[in-house]
């Protein structure tokens, strides 16, 4: 059965839902059009799949269109994506031409129906060229980190970006200094998705049984793909330090496929080597669509780790906090917004630091409980899909009140 706005009432409280209705009343009558590059797969499509129905339930005419592109275009945008992330990429003049040609085609073929048009990420950014002709309000929603980009790609993109009425970034560290207003909108988790919804105790136990994890002993878990930037070897090192004092402790490292990623396979091999013959380390390579199992593993955990060396936003942290688990994470990227040091978990910089914090939390169930509750509240206020809906509504209102720092909506 499809999830409705009412299903969130019990989770976020009636006040939040009423507030969404009040804000929606103020933008009703406008068409909100979202445009991105794919309807399935990837974080943006996942977000829009949730956002659009919720907005419609609020009585807003929210629409979602997808641009077209040939394989050459998507190869170019993949290279642009890497270059914008600061990874060295050879970008030739021909590649810029491919981008321009596809933008031209989409300018002809994409109907702009929105009074407010949200363009997601760099692929459709060139559609802004229609603004000169048809007006409307345009917002560029950038989901990626463009803080240290390769100059040639950023300069090319910037020409488009600065024509927008506003831009949205996930966190200040990801943004650039621009001539247009920029807003921070954190990504969000859906508390009713398979990855986050409440589970029966029996369902959790079934998963533990499947992977031969002892539910009576403390469990440390890191959920992430097998990637050096997630520091799985550092997690094992921290666990091994903890294990000297807490011999009953177990570790789960669970993540998605590494089949088409040669580096991922190498990392998985290294992780298995580091785990050695320890029967209490469970390295789980999960197939796609394992959300329910991931949910169960996190719910069964005593402490969750996200010991990344580099991170985008790292929503796995919010997913764990939502399940009232204290999280120990690397002080990088969006993890810094989700872990309030000493309040919802701990930020650490080394396996030794992580080990100390794990030991501290293993010894103190009251502290774990308090941090778990704090984490849950922190996510409820800042990182749920309902907060995301509210931010979109506020941005539409912000466009009406440019230059005002206090907007009176009496």
């Amino acid at each position, binding site marked *: 059965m499809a999830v409705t706005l009412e299903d969130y009432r019990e989770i976020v409280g009636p*006040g939040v839902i009423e*507030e969404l209705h*009040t*804000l929606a009343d103020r933008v009703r009558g406008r068409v909100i059009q979202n445009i991105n590059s794919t309807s399935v797969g990837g974080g943006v499509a996942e977000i829009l799949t949730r956002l659009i129905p919720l907005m419609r339930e609020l009585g807003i005419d929210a629409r979602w269109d997808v641009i077209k592109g040939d394989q050459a275009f998507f190869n170019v945008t993949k290279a642009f994506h890497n270059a914008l992330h600061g990874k060295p990429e050879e970008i030739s003049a021909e590649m810029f031409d491919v981008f321009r040609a596809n933008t031209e085609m989409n300018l002809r073929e994409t109907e702009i129906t929105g009074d407010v048009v949200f363009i997601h990420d760099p692929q459709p950014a060139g559609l802004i060229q229609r603004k000169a002709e048809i007006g409307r309000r345009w917002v560029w929603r950038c989901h990626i980190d463009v803080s240290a980009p390769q100059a040639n790609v950023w300069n090319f993109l910037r020409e488009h970006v600065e024509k927008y009425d506003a831009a949205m*970034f996930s966190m*200040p*560290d990801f*943004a*650039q*200094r*621009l001539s247009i*207003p*920029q*807003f*921070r909108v954190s990504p969000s988790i859906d508390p009713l998705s398979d990855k986050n919804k409440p589970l029966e105790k029996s369902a959790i136990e079934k998963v533990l049984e499947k992977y031969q994890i002892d539910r009576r002993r403390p469990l440390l878990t890191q959920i992430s793909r097998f990637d050096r930037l997630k520091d799985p070897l550092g997690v094992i090192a921290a666990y091994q330090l903890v294990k000297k004092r807490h011999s009953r402790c177990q570790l789960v490292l669970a993540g998605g496929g590494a089949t088409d990623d040669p580096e991922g396979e190498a990392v998985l091999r290294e992780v298995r080597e580091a785990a050695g013959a320890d029967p209490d380390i469970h390295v789980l390579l999960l197939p796609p669509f394992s959300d329910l199992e991931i949910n169960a593993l996190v719910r069964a955990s005593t402490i969750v780790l996200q010991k990344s060396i580099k991170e985008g936003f790292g929503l796995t942290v919010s997913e764990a906090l939502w399940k009232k688990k204290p999280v120990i994470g690397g*002080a*990088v*990227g969006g993890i810094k917004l989700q872990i*309030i*040091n*000493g*309040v919802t978990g701990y930020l650490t910089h080394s396996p030794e630091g992580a080990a100390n914090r794990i030991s501290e939390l293993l010894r103190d169930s009251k502290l774990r409980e*308090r941090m778990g*509750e*704090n984490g849950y*509240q*922190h996510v409820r*206020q*800042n990182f749920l899909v309902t907060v995301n809906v*509210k*931010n979109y509504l*506020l*941005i539409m*209102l*912000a466009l009406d009140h440019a230059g*005002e*720092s*206090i*907007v*009176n*909506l*009496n």
Partner: protein
Amino acid sequence: MSEAGKQVEPFVFHTENQLVVLTGRKARNAAEMLSQLTEVSGSSIFYHTHYLYLSHHFEKPPFYNDFAKWVSEALQEERLAERLAAIDMLAIPSIRQLREEIVAVFRRHLDDGGESREAPRGDEFHFCESKSFIMPTGLVAQDLPEFFSQIAEVSTSCIHFHFFEARLRLERPTNDFSQWLNDRGEERLARRIDRLNAYAMTLDELKAEIVKLGRRYRRSDGGNA
């Protein structure tokens, strides 16, 4: 109830929603911070000294003041962080003065030959601003009993607006609750609420303190007057 109180307008509870505006400005050390502090908007100063009350109202973080937090965590200059955290926010009537206080602390640190450590890459201070949207909650109090029973119902965003935004950003002489009580001739109660150290507690605690003062007042002569 005082005679004066009878002509006073009812209290309309408002709430606020904030959008975080990114300025693209950043600082890597105390000297850069000092220079940016003199240039950023008042909204930015307000945001970095007040947003944590809104987002962490369930538990007190080590620092509510973002500048102190950054100095402690990124620069690891504990003495400077303590000085910033010790700024007496209750005694400051405007954002302009708040900015001057913060600037003075950084200036003193640098003048005293304090180190200007560099924040590690990725830990720079990013200046943001708040854009606040103020809306009525629908709750309106005609008299004191209604006022205190409704305060117990309102969100922490409502408390944040009437206590912090009203006094500092709108430069009203006191918080809105005390102002309304004053206008009704309830000076003593107004003063008690005004004296609450809102900066030393979470918004939930602040709300509970106001409710407690109201309850005490109703039990006292004031409530029967």
